[in-house]
């Protein structure tokens, strides 16, 4: 399965808007939303069926049996994540606990145990036509990288034999992004022509390069700052990164999204521009050794 991952340094650049347009244009049979912290793709890729839901268990969390606890304080002293407090009784703050098991290890009376904890929910929409894998992380669960891996696994196993998949990645450069990068064939970075957008883009390019994934860039809302758009283009040329196009700011895009439509469902400028971006991207994805050096 060839996998195209769509990333942006940060949200708000139009990553999901572009991902949903790509899904429409390619008639993708398999796609996934890896932004498990704040998934949005399901809002515009209309699903006919109800999803199959599965609880996702992250790392377990510690629990203290206060009847057994002799209040020796060992667990609190050794917890590196400040997750144990002793206001009246010793107790674990589940939001801070990383499930490392140190408290269980040090407790002299066996008062601590690690209990499985639901960290999120995986959702799979699958019918004859297409497979859509997504998830929602429960608030304050720290293990989003692992859930991202599950979302991709779920898509792959449900879409056995499908040749092409589109993945809406997660923002940032941390563990969820690293997890979404693993195993993909190409990354499309959606960059915004602002000073911060450029800084975000550079960081994402470095991360992708670290994992040896080839990278292409498109510029969204390019006309909001021409100078910065040129800066991005210069950067890409200097670093031998393929540019796959520019998309102008388009208030019709907002209207489309608010109606639960993609920008290629209506007749608008951004929709036309994204088609060109799509064609160029697919060309590079399918050509051997296209994109970045690697």
């Amino acid at each position, binding site marked *: 399965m060839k996998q195209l991952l769509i990333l942006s*340094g940060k949200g708000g650049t139009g990553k999901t808007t572009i991902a949903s347009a790509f899904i429409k244009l390619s008639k993708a049979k398999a796609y996934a939303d890896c932004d498990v*912290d*704040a998934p949005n793709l399901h809002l515009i890729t209309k699903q006919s069926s109800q999803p199959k839901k599965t609880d996702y268990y992250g790392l377990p969390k510690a629990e203290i049996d206060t009847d057994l606890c002799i209040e020796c304080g060992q667990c609190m002293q050794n917890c590196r994540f400040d997750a144990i407090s002793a206001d009246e009784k010793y107790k674990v703050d589940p939001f801070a606990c990383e499930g490392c*098991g140190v408290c269980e*290890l*040090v407790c002299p009376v066996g008062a601590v145990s690690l209990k499985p904890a639901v960290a999120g929910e995986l959702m799979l929409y699958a019918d004859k036509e297409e497979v859509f894998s997504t998830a929602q992380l429960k608030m304050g669960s720290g293990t989003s990288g692992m859930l991202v891996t599950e979302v991709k696994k779920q898509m792959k196993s449900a879409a056995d034999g499908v040749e092409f998949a589109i993945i809406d990645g997660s923002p940032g450069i941390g563990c969820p992004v690293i997890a979404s990068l693993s195993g993909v064939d190409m990354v499309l970075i959606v960059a915004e022509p602002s000073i911060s957008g450029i800084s975000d883009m550079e960081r994402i390019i470095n*991360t992708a390069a670290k994992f040896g994934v080839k990278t292409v860039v498109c510029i969204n809302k390019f006309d*909001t*700052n021409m100078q910065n758009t040129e800066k991005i283009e210069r950067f890409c040329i200097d670093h031998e990164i393929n540019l796959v196009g520019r998309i102008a700011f388009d208030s019709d895009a907002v209207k489309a999204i*608010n109606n639960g439509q993609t920008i290629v469902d209506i007749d608008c400028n951004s929709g036309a521009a994204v088609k060109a971006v799509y064609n160029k991207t697919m060309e590079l994805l399918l050509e051997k050794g296209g994109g970045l050096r690697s």
Partner: protein
Amino acid sequence: MRIAVLSGKGGTGKTLVSVNLAAAAKISTYIDCDVEEPNGHLFFKPENIQEEEVHVRIPKVDGKLCNGCRKCVDFCKFNALAYIKDKLIIFEDICHSCGGCILLCPEKALTEKEKVIGKIQKGASDQVTVYTGILNTGEPSGIPIIKKLLNENKPERNKTIFIDCPPGSACIVMESIKDADYCILVAEPTLFGVHNLNMVYELVKLFNKPFGVVLNKCLDGENPSEQFCIEKNIKIIGRIPFDSELGMLNSNAEIAVRKSERYRTIFSSLLETVKKEVHHETTSNS
């Protein structure tokens, strides 16, 4: 007074709001906790930068002492250890620095070394003290950097502190708002915006924090985020129009408050509203 600025996702204007509020407050502290992609410093362009590395402790093994019992491998919940070909291998990038393996090794073969995961920069921009946390690429968690950023600024209670939070509602955000006196939620006028707003709304409710919403990029016509606030009875404390002057200033990393009289007025009045809200909260809770 500590004010945290949140949004369900990046790109909604969280940095815009926190940077401009800090600039409008004049004497203040701005802390950029978005350690994966700190952007505030691009606006403030702080001077006299002092830099400090942030370390975590990770294990190192003395191969002569290790007898290969694998107790540490079995213990490590993050699979950061493996014993392969008569050698203990430590995957530094996935180690969570819990210290468990070191405590447990019966041969005392494991000790700790420090590993740099990022840095903190402190600088000044006019009267604003600017703190920036920067996580090195490839590191799994920025929480140690955020803890350091926030703990070091505890004594400055008399100054107004603006915390630019990481996007989302994961544990890293919780760390950033834990000690906040007030939370500002920034929302975009789209369907996505509402979905993301709902998440941070759940978060501040869970933490029982006083909060209000700033509607950003307001266009004419329908604003799904505004409707959400009305339905949930959430206080809207400010509205920032979508306009190209602000867009241009912002995309060039200029601070609108310092460049435009109009925006100085908008953000100063937002600041007054926030102060009043915080004051109101403290009196009604005491």
